[in-house]
């Protein structure tokens, strides 16, 4: 159409348009980077923990008297919980995925002090562990009752068998990850642990840890001044069983307190709270920002229409049709937006490079940039449509009147 004349008209009155282009550029930079962060967080939140989250809850029991008997209480509690109607299975362990606190130890494939060890999250469990967590055994066998040991507080001893996740196998034995059952790894430099089984997936308790997929199940009841009971229920029984189990435990032994009753659903929510909140905040900021930029476009376009009322009238009188006037303002906005959007794309990439360095973010996916451009073109055109339509309604007769 009339790109040349519009461009020259823009240049005669550039300040206002530069302001709009700058606004669009900054909006674009923020939008693209915010979307990149949102994508990254959403990806983290989608990772499965590997366990049957919907039907699992847990609680902690802490003995506080000198004669509290850890073994007796664990035996009695587990028997009581496992026999409740609606309970699939239960164990005494140290932590659950996503909880935030847990135990990790270094595993190595050769004994010795100078060998590099790989950090692996440890879950203490008995032969009911696989069933309670609802994890998939893909090779080897489950623990046998004879594998299970009782270990005292502050002891350094490890049972000689273990079940690892596939990722643990991949990291420890990169050459033959399919064939790790029967192999021996070493914990505490030189204590041998024979791998008896491999499970598909079970995350460690720390969601931000780089080795979050590396875990090992260890066949022991460990006295840690207290213990954590993990309970898996039949679908639909969880909410009913949670207070029931808490009350039964508290009532059965007054030498301990019961606390920290929580479902896995809530644990996941808490664990990823900062990520989901960040997503909400960014969505809010981007929406507000786009709205403000849109309003800015409406404001300046209205102003420029008001200022040019007589010119528009003159053009109409000289034969320009209404769509031509409408088209003029739409095209003008398109050109201004394009300048801003292109500058914004450069700014967005620059900002992303800086953020990747400063905050360890992953770089933006290439397609976010064209999507952002498209979005802002649409916003610009939508914002200018109102004022442009008003411009097209200016009657030709205005040209003959004084302003």
């Amino acid at each position, binding site marked *: 159409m009339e790109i040349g004349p519009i461009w020259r008209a823009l240049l005669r009155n550039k*300040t206002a348009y530069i302001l709009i282009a700058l606004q669009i550029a900054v909006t674009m930079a923020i939008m693209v980077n915010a979307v990149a962060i949102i994508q990254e967080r959403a990806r983290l939140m989608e990772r499965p923990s590997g366990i049957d989250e919907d039907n699992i809850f847990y609680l902690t029991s802490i003995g*506080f008297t000198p004669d509290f008997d850890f073994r007796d209480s664990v035996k009695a509690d587990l028997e009581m919980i496992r026999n409740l109607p609606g309970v699939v299975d239960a164990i005494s362990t140290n932590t659950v995925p996503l909880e935030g606190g847990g135990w990790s130890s270094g595993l190595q494939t050769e004994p010795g002090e100078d060998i590099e060890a790989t950090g692996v999250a440890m879950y203490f469990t008995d032969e009911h562990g696989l069933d309670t967590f609802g994890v998939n055994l893909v090779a080897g066998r489950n623990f046998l009752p004879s594998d299970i040991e009782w270990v005292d507080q502050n002891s350094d001893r490890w049972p000689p068998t273990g079940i690892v996740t596939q990722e643990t196998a991949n990291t420890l034995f990169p050459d033959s990850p399919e064939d790790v059952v029967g192999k021996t790894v070493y914990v505490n430099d030189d204590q041998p642990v024979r791998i008896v089984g491999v499970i598909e997936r079970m995350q460690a308790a720390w969601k931000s840890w780089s080795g979050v997929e590396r875990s090992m199940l260890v066949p022991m009841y460990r006295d840690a001044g207290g213990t954590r009971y993990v309970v898996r229920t039949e679908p639909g029984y969880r909410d009913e069983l949670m207070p029931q189990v808490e009350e039964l435990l508290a009532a059965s032994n007054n030498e301990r307190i019961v*606390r920290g009753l929580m479902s896995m659903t809530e644990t996941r929510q808490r664990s990823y709270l*900062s990520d989901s909140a960040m997503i*909400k905040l960014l969505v809010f*900021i981007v929406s507000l920002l786009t709205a*403000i930029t849109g309003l800015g476009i409406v404001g300046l376009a209205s*102003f420029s229409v008001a200022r040019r009322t007589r010119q528009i009238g003159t053009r109409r009188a000289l034969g320009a049709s209404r769509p031509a006037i409408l088209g003029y303002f739409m095209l003008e906005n398109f050109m201004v937006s394009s300048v801003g959007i292109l500058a914004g794309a450069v700014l967005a990439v620059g900002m992303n490079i800086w953020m990747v360095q400063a905050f360890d973010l992953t770089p933006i996916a290439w397609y976010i940039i064209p999507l952002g451009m498209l979005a802002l073109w649409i916003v610009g055109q939508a914002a200018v449509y109102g004022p442009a339509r008003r411009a097209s309604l200016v009657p030709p007769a205005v040209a003959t009147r004084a302003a």
Partner: protein
Amino acid sequence: MTRYYLKLGLLSIRNNPVLSALMVAAIGVGIGACMTIVNIDYVMSGNPVPHRSDVLYHVQLDSWDPNKPANEPDKPPDQVTYLDGTALLDARKGRRQVLSYRSGRVIQPEDPDLRPFEVTARSTTADFFPMFDVPFIYGEGWGRSEDDNLVQVVVLGKEINERLFGGVNPVGRTVVMNGDTYRVTGVIDDWNPIPKFYDVSNGAFNDVEEVYFPFSVSIAKEIGSHGNTNCWKPTGEGGWKAFLNSECVWMQFWVELHGADEHRVYMTFLDAYAESQKALGRFERPLNNRLHDVMEWMQDQEVVEDDVQVLLGLAVLFLIVCLLNTIGLLLAKIMRRSGDISLRRALGASRGAIFSQYIVEAGVIGLCGGLLGVGLTWFGLKGIEILYGQFDFVGNLVRMDWIMIFAAIVLAIVSALFAALYPTWRACRIHPASQLKTL
């Protein structure tokens, strides 16, 4: 003259209510978004002990694995081992020193109808209270002799005293924890340093512990840490004894030093201590001991979350967009009044007069935007509190003090004046007669 310009400004705002409201809204929203995040950053990076932060030093000793550093790049561990902590404590080379760790206890109330309940506890040495400027409502902390003689004494937090003794002075009375009887020596008044500088390894923004009792008692009763424990070397068989003698780091050591001389002397002492341990076959890494004062330590530990810094950057850009918007709107407003300005110039108003008039008007708009911004900041902080409600510590971060309210208003006025500079300059350049003919 200023009063006359103020009057003109108010008149002009009344004459253009929509445009003026838009400008106030743009500044208000920008300030609100920006100050919400600035406020959180300000609280997170605040000085938790303003009067003493430059005399309190956190000690790090590199007792770690010879094959790799405790933290990249080549940093010593954040906490100390029992062996080193007690050695530094016994050496008493600083004015005061404190060794402590996070633990927990179960309180058994006297009243048999009340169920026992768990409290967070800090196992600490006597200097904790005077060193960290802990305020007391009743009584005081304990002394060195209680530490040395393993006396079972306890300092209660205000809330626990409320719960156990109904808030009356409990000094001299006793509390039963895990079957042992402790004598109360004092009750701490409202005290919640943010960040919780003395133990950032276990939640930099968590509340302080609910009860405090002697480190020596805690060790004798084999009470383990409820916080972070890191080991690079197996502890070996031998239970609690072996754990105490292990290379696991799990406690925090702070020392009070005044001035550069004391700092230097202490650093020399630390290095000599490390050398003496090297002679015993420990400390196989190169000498790498550190003494950070409170604010240096907060920076080293990066207590301000990355998320907050990202949001801060976005919020500042957000404010810039709002200001660009304001500049555009002001420009529109001034251009619309070109005729007015020409007329005033033709009647003898100087450029300076025009400039003053519009700057005053922008200042008024900035003030209104600032007030709106303070209100929106309050809503923003409420929003953050709701959004992060499941984090217990969020209440500690969403408080707004007078400094921030003042800062918000000043920032709004400065922003408005800055935004007004260009449009006002344009107004001054309007020639006296150029616009008159179109009037």
